[in-house]
């Protein structure tokens, strides 16, 4: 039994390392992440409204059905992004920016929000 203790311990440590690495790199390979799901809806740097969630499916899970949601996949490679729109004072309007591939940048803050 004692002869097996070291190989078993090594095996467990290796398994632990493999598990940890695969969890950490999983976001890179997540084909169903939000960015991938939204890529099929609109082209880069354009605003596209996504369908309201229904009992039979939703473009993005856990979206609030009380809101109309539009997304814009932005690419800052060519310069800064400017958002312009009508001033809907009577409606609740929220703009949130997510860094690409949530999970890779977990230790960085998201980009700032435009002033309300």
């Amino acid at each position: 039994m004692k002869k097996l203790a070291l190989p078993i311990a090594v095996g467990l440590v290796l398994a632990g390392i493999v598990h940890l690495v695969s969890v950490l790199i999983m976001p890179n390979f997540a084909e169903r992440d939000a960015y991938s799901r939204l890529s099929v809806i609109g082209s880069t740097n354009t605003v596209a409204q996504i369908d309201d969630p229904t009992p039979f499916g939703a473009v993005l899970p856990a979206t609030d059905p009380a809101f109309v949601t539009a997304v814009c996949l932005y690419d800052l490679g060519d310069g800064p992004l400017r958002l312009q729109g009508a001033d809907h004072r009577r409606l609740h309007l929220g703009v949130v920016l997510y860094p690409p591939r949530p999970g890779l940048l977990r230790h960085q803050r998201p980009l700032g929000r435009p002033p309300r």
Partner: protein
Amino acid sequence: MRCASLARAGELPLEQADGLAFIANTDDGGNALDGRCDIRLSGKLPQARFWTLTLTDSRGRLIDNAANRFGFTSAEAVWNGDGTVDIALGPRSRAGNWLPTGARDRVVLTLRLYDAPVGIATRTSDAPEMPALVTERCP
């Protein structure tokens, strides 16, 4: 771990400064929310400019119903005179604010607060006052 699971599920979570979500799958007594029962949410809601309450099944899907009703917003709910709100959840229509559960055995309530005071989001203020969630009667 959370980032990996969010990436797989494709969720874009509410950012802290935009809104705050509270999710309940048990009542105040610790019992799982059973959509075959009559459940009541009552009391004061935490301070926020605007809130929405959404009912889903255990997988987070909206529940199909003839009224096409999936939740309430603070602007839609009928309020009591004292600033409290009463919302009934159940398989059959009830007077007042009613959310159809479709008699699903497991339901989940999500309260999303929009423009809540920063203290709630950062947990630097006292815990917000939450309404009571009680299972009233079961078949």
